[in-house]
């Protein structure tokens, strides 16, 4: 029951908000409810058995019998932290948007709760169609959040985001249907369960894209590549991020992009081993291009938020690179980097939002000398910057180090190129930091000093947990990784014939 409660509780909380709050009371109420949901989701840590690689806390009910589609949810070491990341970020986002969402907060909080349900549902579904439904359903609230509360070009951005994602995911739907039919042929029963999909032998012919496995691989990879986003299908991301309101950017960067990399880890790598073997290097190369290209483009952005958005492209490139290195270092690092990126980029968007609320400007050249008027803000921004550029002692270091190690083992030249990306990453972040916080006092500091008040208590509460986790995850990675290690080990040990068991059931 616990997983279903975690999935659907936000939906119920959303209904509570609709019926029992007013525009005046909704802010604290929504925050407290989201906090309750987070507290409840922590029960997972108590129920979850970290020593097992199998699927736990499974619930399975028949749903659409003729097609073998079931309501099938379960959790393993891979989905565990992504679920917790989602429930952790939601209350922070609520608290962080008290002032940035000026109108219709009630409606906003309903969308956020629906989004939380859809995201948690995607991470926990073990049935491909159920996953698809949650995956698609997450678009709708995001579409409204960007479209209603976004910036001036919000409508262009939100429609672009929606159509881009739909394109990929509909082709994936066809591939899912194909696999369901294949399950009927090979296992004697049509099924949409992932565990059954893992057992399939999908025909593959070396060197051609016209074999079923290669085509399904392409369909899945496109859907998730758009979501990650991988170069060259990343173009919706800068638009969506720049136009989205701060909370929208945080959930988009923090959790929604992880749906793409999670999809690679859960679907693409285990389902199509031969296709990954022969075509995977191209995805790695796209990831590599993303790292360098994202960093270069970020370097020349005049807009802080756009800079952070392009840094996402770069960081997610590392995750892809690590996943497709297909060894324990790369995959562990990629997994860890998913969480790190959620924390550090989420925090960066929150910080950018805080300064934007004060000055209504995100132009780097308008700032300068901010450190002198907002010391606390500067310190917070600095710590998160360090985490983003992977300085030892922060979470980013562990992730990127493992990814680079895995990449070097997999392919040394890719490792070299990726390592230069780390340097570029440091360059654009630190250069931006220098231009905004130090140097000669800029336009805003000189003329509008009165608006530049330092962090308020609420903002301190928003940032404190993010900074805490950035350092905690950097100093004690074992506290987190030990929960996922059996699953990741199992994943690498069985690549080629991946299978997953339900805990307590023996084959």
């Amino acid at each position, binding site marked *: 029951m616990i997983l279903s409660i975690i999935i659907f509780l936000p939906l119920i909380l959303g209904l509570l908000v609709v019926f029992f709050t007013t525009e005046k009371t909704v802010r604290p109420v929504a925050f407290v409810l989201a906090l309750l949901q987070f507290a409840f989701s922590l029960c997972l840590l108590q129920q979850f058995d970290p020593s097992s690689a199998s699927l736990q806390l499974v619930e399975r009910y028949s749903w*659409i019998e003729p097609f073998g589609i079931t309501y099938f949810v379960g959790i393993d070491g891979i989905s565990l932290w992504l679920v917790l990341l989602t429930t952790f970020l939601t209350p922070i986002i609520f608290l962080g948007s008290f002032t940035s969402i000026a109108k219709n907060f009630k409606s906003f909080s309903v969308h956020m709760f629906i989004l939380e349900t859809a995201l948690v549902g995607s991470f926990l579904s073990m049935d491909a169609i159920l996953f698809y439904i949650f995956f*698609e359903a997450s678009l709708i609230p995001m579409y409204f959040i960007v479209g*209603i509360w976004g910036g001036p070009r919000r409508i262009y951005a939100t429609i672009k985001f929606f159509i881009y994602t739909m394109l990929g995911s509909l082709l994936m739907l066809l591939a899912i249907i194909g696999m369901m039919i294949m399950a009927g042929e090979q296992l004697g029963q049509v099924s949409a369960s992932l565990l059954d999909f893992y057992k399939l032998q999908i025909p593959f012919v070396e060197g051609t894209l016209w074999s079923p496995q290669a085509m399904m691989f392409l369909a899945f990879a496109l859907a998730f590549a758009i979501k990650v986003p991988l170069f060259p299908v990343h173009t919706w991301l800068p638009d969506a991020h720049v136009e989205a309101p701060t909370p929208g950017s945080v959930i988009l960067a923090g959790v929604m992009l992880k749906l793409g990399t999670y999809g690679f880890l859960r679907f693409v790598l285990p389902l199509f081993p031969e296709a990954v073997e022969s075509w995977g290097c191209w995805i790695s190369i796209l990831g590599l291009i993303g790292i360098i290209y994202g960093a270069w483009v970020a370097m020349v952005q005049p807009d802080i938020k756009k800079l952070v958005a392009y840094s996402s492209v770069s960081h997610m490139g590392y995750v892809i690179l690590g996943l497709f290195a297909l060894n324990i270092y790369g995959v562990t690092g990629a997994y860890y980097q998913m969480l790190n990126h959620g924390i550090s980029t989420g925090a960066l968007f929150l910080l950018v939002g805080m300064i934007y609320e004060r000055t209504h400007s995100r132009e780097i050249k308008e700032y300068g000398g901010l450190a002198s008027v907002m010391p606390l803000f500067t310190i917070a921004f600095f710590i998160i910057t360090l985490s983003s550029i992977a300085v030892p002692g922060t979470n980013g270091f562990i992730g990127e180090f493992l990814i680079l190690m895995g990449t070097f083992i997999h392919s040394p030249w890719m490792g070299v190129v990726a390592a230069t990306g780390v340097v570029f990453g440091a360059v654009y972040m630190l250069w931006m930091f220098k231009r905004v916080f130090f140097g000669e006092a800029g336009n805003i500091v000189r003329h509008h000093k009165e608006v530049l008040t330092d962090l308020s208590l609420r903002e301190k509460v928003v940032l404190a947990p993010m900074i805490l986790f950035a350092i905690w995850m950097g100093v004690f990675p074992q506290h987190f990784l030990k929960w996922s290690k059996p699953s990741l080990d199992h994943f690498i040990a069985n690549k080629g014939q991946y299978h997953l068991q339900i805990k307590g059931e023996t084959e």
Partner: protein
Amino acid sequence: MSVSTGIHDILAIFPLLAVFFASTVPLLIKSIKQKEPSAMSTLIQALSGVGIAAGWILISYSAGSLSVFSNALIIDGTSYPSVLLILLATGVALLISYENVNVKGEHFAERVFLILNSCIGMMTMVWANDLLVTFIGLEIMSIALYLLVAMSHEQTLAKEAAFKYFIMGGFSAAVFLYGLAFIFGSSGVTELSSLKSMSPQLLANSRLFVLGWSMMLVGFCFKVSIFPFHFWTPDVYQGAPTPITAFMATAVKTASFIALLKFILSFPVSEAPAILDTLQWMAILTILVGNIGAIMQENLKRMLAYSSIAHSGYAFIALIVAGSGSGEYGSTSLIFYLLTYSVMNLGAFAIVALFEKFEEQSLHVSDLKGLANKYPYLSFCLAIFLLSLAGIPPTAGFFGKLYVFSGAINSGFIWLAVWGVLGSVISVYYYLRPIVMMYMFDDLFKEQAQPLGPARVAVGVSLVLVLMVGLLSSPIFMAIQKSVKLMFQ
């Protein structure tokens, strides 16, 4: 040949008689009283006729295949769910018609009479086992529709629509009959069940038969607006009074598709590769033409008209699947698709009807600006209908498409499914535009919604159905499948 009509024939077509009697009651009352009867009582009389017919079908569901009037009609497995769907669509269309701007309290009894008689034609079509009876049903349905389109008080678009529909309809009926003559000439029969056993041999030996079959197919394709016979659809749907558009887009389309299904099942499509290829191209082009055409539309009704062309294309995929071997699955997914398509379209048209003030005024997409600020519930419903039309889970539209595409992939029509989803991606753009207008602007909506209870009921019924068919798609799909199985035993 002896013609004997027994009581069991009458009982079997009782739903048809019930609808017919219900259609005459308001007219009789009007002629006796010499004045317009109250619209509400007319509506209740009509709905009770439809309700009795639907109830009868639900009761006789288990009777299995019935052959009545010397095999002229066969009440078989496909007809139970499809007649129910036709009656549902008719009922909702009646609700939307009540006090609609196009009615203005005049001639409501006549309209109801025509709508219900059109419904009788549809039932005849769905049950027909003889191609001549199919034609009679088609004509009863169509003639009532020509009148209904022309009865609008609006002077230019509606008249143009009625005239266009009439001329094109007459032309297609002629092609249909001409084809029928060839079929009769080459085979000597018009009964579908006899044709079914003869057609493999005829296909090999008689070119005349293939010509006749293709001409009849053209006649059907005109009715369900398949490319390249779709050109009348946008003009007629736009010009017709909105309740009638809703009626045409749902009930008429369902009946024509089911008649077409029976027609296609009588012919071994998979043995004629040229015809199979042609059908596939027609489906793909219908999807593309409908979706690309809809992108450019400002007028909401016209946009929905193009979207209905695209949806015909998706239903056509299910039809091809049914025709090429997997008849049972194809028919089931076709009926399920028509069900999802009908409920979401009825809802969308009901909302359009609520915001029409004059017959001349047509609702544009940009008119919807700020609707959500003033009418949150109606906007929510319209948003759900549009998302469902776009096929976003977990609404009904998604499951309709899922089942159709599963059938296509299972039968090996992978490219058909790929084109289908590409069309869906295009469609997202125009289905989202009204939502953008409703929700993402701060302007206040200027118009007032009409205070029409029944039309609001229609919206509510459609909303419940869209959500229910979405979440409970499995039991509904299985019920249809169980019924369709009767036909293939």
